[in-house]
């Protein structure tokens, strides 16, 4: 199972970003083996960033997203998918993954 984290920098030490679709990076984290891929999100573009970011999640086959509260158009796209979004505000990516595993994160 893979999850996607919206982060300020490309590492597990990074803070979860204040923004979902306009975050600097996405980490695609594999819960089975602890490996992760980094997606540079700097060119998300000017229009429709929300749905585009959800598309990135779909393309990477993730089951969950950990981020700040996504905007309305992003949430519309999320509701059309099977992906769940969890509130990771104020956490580091590492801590967010830990809390996700133990079921402590709140679903948005």
């Amino acid at each position, binding site marked *: 199972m893979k999850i996607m984290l919206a982060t300020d920098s490309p590492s597990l030490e990074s803070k979860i970003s204040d*923004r979902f679709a*306009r975050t600097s990076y996405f980490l695609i984290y594999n819960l089975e083996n602890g490996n992760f891929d980094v997606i540079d999100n700097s060119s998300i*573009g*000017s229009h429709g960033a929300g749905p585009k970011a959800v598309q990135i999640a779909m393309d990477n086959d993730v089951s969950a997203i950990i981020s700040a509260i996504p*905007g309305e158009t992003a949430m519309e796209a999320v509701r059309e998918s099977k992906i769940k979004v969890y509130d990771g505000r104020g956490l580091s990516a590492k801590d967010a993954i830990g809390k996700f595993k133990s079921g402590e994160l709140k679903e948005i």
Partner: protein
Amino acid sequence: MLVFQIAIVSGKGGTGKTTLSASFSYLAKERVMADCDVDAPNLHIILKPQIIERHEYFGSKKAVLDQEKCVMCGVCEQVCRFDAIKFDSDRYVINEYACEGCGACTIACPAKALQLVQSLSGEYYLSKTDNGPMVHALLKPSEETSGDLIAEVRKLALKVAYDSQIPLVIIDGAPGIGCPATSSITSTNYVILVTEPTMSGLHDLRRIVETVRHFRIKMGVVINKYDINPSKTQEIEEYCKTEEIEMLGKIPYDECVKRATENAQPVILYDCSASEEIKRVWENVSSKI
């Protein structure tokens, strides 16, 4: 240190966001100002920032035609839905203001003479003002990339706040309820909604409240020029009560606001009833920080 971010928005334009923001920028002890109305910014008129750093903003992509490769077939002109490509005397020319960067021409061109290229959509600036840093921007005409540029403005404002140990960012938000307004309020700690006692003021207030609720941010309402329409003011107050939204204050119509605006100065530098109420609103807001 944690930085507290306050956004001032309204839904409807022209209710007094910038008037309030300018006064708050003087009332706050330490603050970074962020003018997030990047389409038509005005805060700089009052705060008179001196630019320290200038950043280029590449937001959108535009089609660029390589005249060397062009075979003059005209397919690009046919597929362009925005009438952005026209034949001009001896060659095809792209009107950059009309181009939306959809890329249809780049796919249709048999000679591969067209390409989408990142284009300069605007600039954003770090400046200094009399009482603290300010981040502001200017979008080029015809660009529609403001949500993204606002994100850049806010990132820089937050960075400046952390670097200079300033615990407060005040965001003069974008009007409307869409992308720019959303980008102005997301992940803030408190939202001030400025409305006026008119039908459209209340209508747009209801809509922006929905947007703020979506992000689960605390908010309070200020009614500007409340005494020009007492029954509408009452209606707004009842609405806020029903929706359990805090009333931060009611600013009277006051000639001194007009004078302050004409002189490009913040209202609170004047001794008048509007100025007194703005100070009370700020006290109210400061208690949330």
